């Protein structure tokens, strides 16, 4: 799979500003590599919202978000020399975001934040979702549901959390996730299998304990996880 075409789905925040053609992108990268200040500015302005949005969604809160955005761009500017152009610039930045977010999650595990997770702004969701004004009850319900999702994610190990987020929420396939987390698809598949099982068990936590007993109807093992990598993503190994 060509990395150039990958991850089109995660570039929501870039808008037209970041819509660079391959030639323009190559030119921008070359100028950045030549240490041209205006090129650095352009790269920052084009991708800053995408980077902030990715970090925000992965982490579920805006604590230290500006520091993390800074970290992503510092890493990017430092590492541009080594950027070979195998992937699109946005994909490469997304990969840095994932790694920075992973580091943040690990730190947070060691030193839990005083504030709760999931302060995602419920009022600024996709316009298609807010075309009809929501009732306050529905808004509250949606916000609570998001909080529940992020609380469940918090309970997962960092690596599991990242692959689960990328697969279930961002909708990426195994190969894409493997590129982003710098792993191989088989490892990702296994990690994802356990992550999903754990995550949905937590989500269904209010159900009777006997409910989640394994094995169940599906009775599948990590070697043949249903749904993971199958269907639209076409990444079933």
């Amino acid at each position, binding site marked *: 799979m060509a990395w150039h075409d990958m991850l089109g789905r995660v570039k929501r925040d870039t808008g037209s500003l970041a819509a660079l053609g391959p030639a323009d992108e190559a030119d921008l990268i070359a100028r950045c590599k030549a240490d041209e200040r205006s090129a650095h500015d352009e790269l920052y302005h084009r991708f*800053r919202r995408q980077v902030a949005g990715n970090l925000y969604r992965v982490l579920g809160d805006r604590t230290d978000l500006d520091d993390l955005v800074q970290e992503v761009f510092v890493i990017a500017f430092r590492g541009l020399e080594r950027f070979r152009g195998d992937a699109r610039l946005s994909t490469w930045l997304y990969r840095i975001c994932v790694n920075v977010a992973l580091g943040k999650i690990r730190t947070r595990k060691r030193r839990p934040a005083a504030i709760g997770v999931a302060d995602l702004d419920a009022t600024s969701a996709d316009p298609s979702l807010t075309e009809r004004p929501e009732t306050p009850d529905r808004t509250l319900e949606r916000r609570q549901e998001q909080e529940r999702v992020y609380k469940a994610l918090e309970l997962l190990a960092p690596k599991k959390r990242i692959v689960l987020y990328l697969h279930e929420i961002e909708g990426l396939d195994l190969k894409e996730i493997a590129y982003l987390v710098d792993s191989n698809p088989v490892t990702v598949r296994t990690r994802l299998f356990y992550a999903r099982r754990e995550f949905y068990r937590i989500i269904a936590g209010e159900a009777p304990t006997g409910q*989640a007993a394994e094995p169940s109807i599906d009775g599948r093992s990590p070697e043949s996880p249903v*749904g993971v990598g199958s269907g639209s993503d076409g990444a079933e190994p």
Partner: protein
Amino acid sequence: MSTHIAAHRWADLWAGRVGDAERSVMERHAERCRACARVRAHVTRASDSFVAIRSQPAPEVPWDAIRARVHWSVSTERRAALRHRRPAYGWLLAATAAGVAVALATGTTRTAISTERPIAVRKDVAIPPAPPPAALIGLVSRASGDVMVDGVRPSDLFERALARGSLIATGDGRVDVQFGDHSAFALAPRSTIELRRFDAQTIELAVDGTVDVTVAPRGDGQRFLVDAGDHVVEVRGTQFRVTHDAGSTSVACRHGLVAVSDGTGKVEVGAARRVRVANGGSVSSEHVVALSSDEVATLAQATPLALPLWDPALAQSSAPLEIATVGRRDVRVDGVELGLAPLRVRVMPGRHTIEAADSAGRFRRAGWVDVAAPPRGERVEVPAEPPATGGITERRRQLRTRIDRPRIRRCMRSIAKAGLTGTYVEVEIAVDAQGAVGFLNVIDTDLPSATASCVREVLADVRFGAGAAATWRERVDL
């Protein structure tokens, strides 16, 4: 063995990753199993929220501040890397050290030699060490946008004395620093400057980006240098701009004379002339060209701001004035153009007149402000420019003809009974193209507040049709 359905399978079902046969089995199971139905509901709700999470846009963060910090980190590393690439004289030190070691090892021989040829030292004449040159300080005279000093955004930017070793970086804004009578520099957006030497004898600034400098004529023996990569700009008394980036170094002189030198040679750049040298290239008089009138005007506009009276204790006798505007607007303080606000500027305590440019570029009085004694300073908010308007005559006619006069008379009954006549209400009103009233404010009246409020309600009930948008002031005589 349980016959319940695992929770993640409901997620697969939600995502359409389950075949039809299995789907119907699962759904039938959920119909008769309340526990599984509940789990399904939980998982479905969570999966529904994925869509909302996925569509969350990026929150607003301080983009300029982040950019400044990124620039700071990256440029600091770049400078450090450049320093390491400079010719190393370590081998010379090593050779010297080796020589010293050898000499120490053969100390007897050396002693013998020194006995043979004693060094004459006149201990009776003590040579006083040369007094170190007086250190200079710089004070910020104007700042806009993000400014970092030594890696932090100081809250006391205007109180802070900038001395040798200070490192200043800008984000999207700029900063002006005064360091003497008619001597100041202005750091352009996304630039850094290091005060490498900053004393009465030598001022040496290392710039990465663009800096505009105004230097008063200096005394004999004083040097003013700007390091721009491999090139050094030396001046005596002048105004000039140095731009140094990864590709080239450019020096433009507005008046006076500057000398640009590097390892290969030296070239003098006179008034209204510019030299541009590619990094790695050598300076040559062939590179000197005349400035266009636009370039000269740009240089004139970028003149660093310097207070007329310089005193190193200025930080204690002056205060920052913050001018806030809606959007970016040119402002003047006491008739001096300061550029685009919002910005902060150093002023002396007392009353100052603020003017702001409208969309046509005309400066209009925005008010005055009394600046308190330092270090408090003052903040003034320039009111937003009223939106462009047209068709006032028609809108005014509509207002006058559609006022409900009987209601007005009812509002005024008590006033009329008291025998008061000739009262008025002056309102400011904005009507958009659809005829909707944007705002309606009573800005002046001689009526009691209750009566004025009653009249305002009557005016607010006037209906306008579609037409030109207009904002105007109307005096309604009652």
